[in-house]
C-alpha cells in the first residue's frame, strides 16, 4: 500500500480479481492495495497481463472485485449493483479510450453530449456544458463534424471532452495516446496535464509509452497482479 499526503480520491484495499479462461482460473489482481490522491496524475505501467486494465476497470466501476474494497470519491463502489454502478459512473468517472470509441453516426457535439442525456438537465444546460467541454479541448469549431471527418488527435480530443463533460471526479485513460502519432500524442498529454492543473482532475492513465509516463506525477508498476513499485515520474516540467 502506498503512503501519500493529501485527500485520497481513490482507495483500493486488498483487491483480488480472477477471470476464467476455459477451464483455467487466472488471478489478474492479487491482494492489491493502492491510494490515489485528489488531483494526482498517476500512470499505470507493467507488462501485458499485469492487471493494469483490470485495475482501471475496477476503479472506473466497470467491473467488481472478487474480494477487497474500492472507494472512489467517498463512494464504496465494490458492493454496488450493476445498475447503481451505471448511475454512479455517469456522474463520477470520465473514460478516455485508446481507440476513441466515438459513435460514428453522431457529430462531435452529439458524442460529447451523450453522457448528459442520462442526467436530469435541460437542453440548454446540456448545450452549455458541451460547448464548455469542446472549448477546453479546443474543438468548438469542429463540433458539427462527424468522427470520420476528424483526425485521430481530434477524435481523441472529442473523447476527452466527452470524458469531462459531466465534471467527473476521476478520469481514467486506457492508453489514450496508443493510436496517435508523436505530435498528436504530445497534444493529448498536454491536454491531460492541463486538466489536472487547472481543473484539479484526478487522472489515472494506463500506458506502455515511457514518454507518456513521464508526463504523470507518479507511476505505479504492476506485475502479475501485484504492485511492484511506485515512483515519481521523470518530468521535464
Amino acid at each position, binding site marked *: 500500500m502506498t503512503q501519500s499526503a493529501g485527500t485520497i480520491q481513490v482507495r483500493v484495499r486488498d483487491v483480488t480479481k480472477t477471470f476464467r479462461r476455459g477451464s483455467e482460473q487466472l488471478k489478474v489482481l492479487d491482494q492489491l492495495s493502492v491510494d490515489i490522491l485528489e488531483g494526482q496524475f498517476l500512470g499505470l505501467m507493467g507488462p501485458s497481463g499485469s492487471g493494469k486494465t483490470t485495475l482501471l476497470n475496477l476503479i472506473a466501476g466497470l467491473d467488481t472485485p472478487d474480494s477487497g474494497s474500492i472507494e472512489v470519491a467517498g463512494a464504496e463502489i465494490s458492493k454496488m449493483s450493476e445498475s447503481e454502478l451505471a448511475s454512479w459512473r455517469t456522474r463520477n468517472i470520465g473514460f478516455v479510450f485508446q481507440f476513441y470509441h466515438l*459513435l460514428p*453516426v453522431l457529430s462531435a457535439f452529439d458524442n460529447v453530449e451523450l453522457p448528459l442525456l442520462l442526467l436530469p438537465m435541460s437542453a440548454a444546460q446540456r448545450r452549455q456544458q458541451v460547448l464548455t467541454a469542446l472549448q477546453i479541448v479546443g474543438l468548438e469549431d469542429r463540433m458539427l463534424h462527424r468522427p470520420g471527418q476528424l483526425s485521430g488527435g481530434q477524435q481523441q480530443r472529442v473523447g476527452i471532452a466527452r470524458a469531462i463533460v459531466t465534471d467527473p471526479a476521476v478520469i481514467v485513460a486506457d492508453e489514450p495516446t496508443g493510436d496517435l502519432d508523436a505530435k498528436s500524442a504530445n497534444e493529448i498529454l498536454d491536454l491531460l496535464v492541463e486538466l489536472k492543473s487547472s481543473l484539479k482532475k484526478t487522472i489515472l492513465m494506463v500506458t506502455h509509452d515511457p514518454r507518456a509516463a513521464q508526463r504523470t506525477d507518479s507511476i505505479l508498476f504492476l506485475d502479475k497482479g501485484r504492485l511492484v513499485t511506485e515512483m515519481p515520474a521523470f518530468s521535464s516540467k
Partner: protein
Amino acid sequence: MKYFGLVFRNLSRNILRTLLTAFGTMILVFVVTLVWSVLAFLDQATQARSEKIKAVVTERWTIPSRMPYAYANLLKDGAAREAGEVKPIDYMSWTFYGGTTDAKGQDPTKFLFAIGMEPEKIPTMLDDLDQGSLSAADFALLMEGVEKLKKTRNGIILGKDRLNAQEKKIGDRIKITSVNYRGIDLEFEIVGTFPAGRYDSSAIYRIDYFNAAMEAYPQTHAGVAHPSAGRTLNLVWLMVPDSAAFNKVADQITRSPNFSNPSVKVETSSSSIAVFLEAYRDLLWGARWILSPSILLTLSLIISNAIAISVRERESEFAVMKVLGFRPNQLLVLVILEALIVGVTAGFISSGGTYFLVNKVAGGIPFPIAFFSKFLIPNGALWWGPVVGGLTALAGSLAPALSARSVKVANVFSKVNG
C-alpha cells in the same frame, strides 16, 4: 427526443440495409394483407346475420339449381297461404344466361355471364348497392341505369370490366350467342353501368326479356319447346326481418306442396355460401393457418437477421454506452425501437398502399369464387400493416436486443486493447 434521434441516426448508418429490410417487410405485409382481405371477406359473407336476413331458395338435389319459373311467383310470398304466416319483406329471382358476343366463339374475353332479375330489385336486394352503401354520385349512376333498364326490355347493365372486355360503351348493342340456352340468342342494349368496385365484372338484364324469348322459342322451332323450358329459374332470394321470420318462411316453403317437383331447400345466404366454399375448405385453411403464419415468421426472421448484423457491428459502441452509464435495458429498448420504426412504418406504407391501389385504382382483387367476382381491402387493413410490421419486428429484434443488453464491458475492452 435526443434518444429517438439516436435511433434514427442508427437506422441511417447503413441505408441500404435499412431500405432492404423495409422493402422486404412491405412485400410480405402486402401478401398478408391480400390473403387476410379475402379471408375476412369470406368470413363476413359466411357469418350469420341477426336481422334483415337474406334467404336463398334453390333446387334441393341438383347443382346447378334449375327450377320452374312458376315457382318465382309463389316463393316471393314465402308460400304464405294462411293468416299469421310470414311473408318476406322483399325478393328477387335469378336466371343465369351465359354466352359469347364473338360469333366464331374463339375469343374468350368476349364471354359474358349475366344474371336476369327484376330491375327494381337491384338497389334493394343486391349487396352494397343501396343508397346507404354508395356515395351520392355512385348511387345516381346506378339508378340512371336501373331506370333505363325498367323502360328498356332488352336492356342490360354491365360492370366496368365487362364494358372494357366487350369494347363497348353505354348505348351500344351486343348480341349474345348463348351457351347454356342454345338457340336462344339475345340482343341487348347497354343501358347503364355499376359503380366501380364489387360489380365490375357483373352483368344484369331483365328476367322477363329472357322468359319472353323462351316462350317464343316454339314459334321458330316447329312448336317444340326449348329443352330447358320449365327449368329456367336458378335462385330466388327472399329478405326476411330476423331469424325467427326466416325459420317460419323456411318451414312454410318446405311444407308447401307447390314445391315438390323439383323439391327445394331454403337456407340463409351465409350458410349457402359456406356450403359453396366447402370445396375450397382446404385451400382456405392452408391460407389461414399455414401461409399466413409462414409469412409472419419469415418477416420476423428477415428483421431479426438485419438487426442481429447491426448489433454485432456495434458491439463496442454498446459497450461504450454502458461505460458512459447507459443501463442494459436502455440498450435493449434502443435496438427494439430501431426494429419497430422500420416494421411499423414499412407495414403502414404497405397496407395503406395496398388499400389505395387495390380499392381506388384497381377496383378490387379479381378472385372469382362463389358469387363474388372481386374482393376489396377492408378498412381494417390500414391498421393490419403497422401491427403486423410492429409485432414481427418486436419478435425478430428480441434476441439481438437481448444480445446488445448483455454486452460485457470488460470483455469487449480486453479484446479491443489486447
